[in-house]
């Protein structure tokens, strides 16, 4: 593999794309050649790992890697799956018995086994796809470590865990908050599944204490997932039904008030001239009430969006987090049909050109600015 990486580097170094580049880029090129060779031999290495060893910008590494693949016409090697990377990643944690106190110690095999189950769960519930692998691995290893001796380890934060395991500071790339976010997401999923355990009886599960339930959750993972999704679907259907019923009630009450208003209007009709209210106003008031009720109808209908228009993400319990709160695309009214050959009038063009007076003022203003 070493000779493979060296020959690849020699080829790339003498390629025209990489001749007149900075020294930093050439160093990163070496790392990219190693990465490409490792992947071709199914050696699980993450780009972040090589990046942290080279102390280079992740963006630069990405650019150079893509240029390398394009320039040398390399077959894009497959990215290593998380489970392949997990074993070598776990061995990077100094948690073996003898290296740390017994309370914190864990054999790499046990850690790998528990973490692999958590990684599989994370992949099933959309926490893995499209994301950087190392923060997820770190989060899974941390939660796995806690769950193996929860009573003694639950109180230790992720930062403390990294110190105990003597991880290098840039083990996870530039952003330190990403692993924390992944831990939160993973715990959130474990809480949702933990709630479905029969002995929890639907009670809430706290993220801080979910480590005690991880073993049971992983043992019955598939059935808990199905159960959680089913109960969520039932909840959503119940909410939709209640929303529809409340909308119907609102419509009924507004029509009742409208009828009552019309009846009271008719009753007041003969009295109106004595009260100095012109009779013409009666129908208007009736109309205005109609409009008002129609308006209020509209507002009640608008405030509770019809079921068909609610975001599809509401109906799924486990979704990619980005899909949960999707920004609604602003619906612009479709413009008039355009053929590209329409006549262009002078008046609309003139709006894009300054008048002589405007030009004069602009020039004077520029002069004053430069003088100041």
């Amino acid at each position, binding site marked *: 593999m070493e000779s493979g990486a060296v020959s690849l580097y020699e080829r790339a170094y003498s390629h025209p794309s990489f001749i007149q580049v900075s020294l930093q880029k050439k160093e990163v090129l070496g790392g990219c050649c190693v990465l490409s060779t490792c992947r071709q031999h199914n050696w699980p290495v*993450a*780009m*972040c790992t090589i990046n942290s060893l080279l102390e280079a910008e*992740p963006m630069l590494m*990405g650019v150079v*890697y*893509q240029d390398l693949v394009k320039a040398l016409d390399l*077959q*894009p090697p*497959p*990215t290593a*799956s998380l489970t392949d990377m997990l074993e070598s990643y776990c061995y990077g944690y100094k948690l073996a018995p003898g290296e740390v106190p017994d309370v914190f110690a864990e054999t790499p095999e046990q850690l790998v086994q528990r973490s692999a189950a958590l990684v599989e769960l994370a992949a*099933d519930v*959309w926490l893995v*796809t*499209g*994301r*950087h*692998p190392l923060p997820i691995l770190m989060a899974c290893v941390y939660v796995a470590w806690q769950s193996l001796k929860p009573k003694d380890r639950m109180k230790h934060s992720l930062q403390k865990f990294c110190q105990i395991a003597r991880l290098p500071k840039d083990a996870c790339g530039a952003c330190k908050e990403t692993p924390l976010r992944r831990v939160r997401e993973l715990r959130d999923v474990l809480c949702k599944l933990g709630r479905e355990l029969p002995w929890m009886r639907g009670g809430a599960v706290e993220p801080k204490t979910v480590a005690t339930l991880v073993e049971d959750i992983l043992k019955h993972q*598939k059935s808990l*997932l*199905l159960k959680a*999704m089913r109960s969520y679907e039932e909840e959503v259907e119940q909410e939709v039904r209640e929303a529809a019923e409340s909308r119907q009630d609102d419509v009924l009450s507004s029509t009742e008030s409208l009828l009552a208003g019309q009846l009271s209007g008719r009753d007041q009709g003969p009295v109106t001239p004595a009260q100095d209210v012109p009779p013409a106003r009666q129908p208007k008031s009736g109309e205005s009430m109609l409009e008002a009720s129609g308006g209020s109808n509209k507002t009640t209908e608008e405030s509770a969006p019809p079921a068909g228009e609610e975001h599809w993400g509401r109906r*799924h319990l*486990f979704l*990619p987090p*980005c*899909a949960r709160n999707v920004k609604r*695309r602003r619906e612009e009214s479709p*413009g008039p049909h*355009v*053929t*590209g*050959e*329409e006549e*262009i009038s*002078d008046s*609309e*063009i*003139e*709006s*894009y*050109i*300054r008048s002589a007076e405007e*030009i004069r003022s*602009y*020039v004077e203003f520029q002069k004053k600015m430069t003088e100041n």
Partner: protein
Amino acid sequence: MEPSNDVALDIIVTNVVSVFRTRCHLNLRTIGLEGNNVIYKPEVGKVLMKLRKPRITASIWSSGKIICTGATSEDEAKLGARRLARCLQKIGFKVRFSDFKVVNVLAVCSLPFQIRLIEFTKNNRPIASYEPELHPAATYRIKTLRSTVQVFSTGSITVTGPNVQSVASAVEQIYPLLFECQKTLV
């Protein structure tokens, strides 16, 4: 399970990039002075001009080459380009609207299912590539159509191609491949 033939997908064109030439030299300072809604960038040697209808932004070079971006259809791009040429004529340049060409179309489409990106990449190597550490989407390049499709796990896809027809063909071509790799919830 085979993809149904009756699926209707909304392909929304979000950007059309077009170029044309004016066949004359353009004085950028004059355009910067006499034009409304213009930004003169002497450091890069171009002027940016924005039109309201259609909403497009044009980059104008002194050689007479102009690139227009922001239109949402090919016809709109042509209309915007012609309007721009008329503006330059009004300013006083001897502009001849020529060599108009749509060079790039960007469209987005939302599929009704989520996608297993790793499986999609494995099934379609080497045309598909997926580097989660660089970008969350898998890239699928269709050489025959000169189009690129970026596939996200949520089912959203973005398609870039030289024209609207190739974008539509790219979506038709990729749909069955994505359908095979749809993610069913456990």
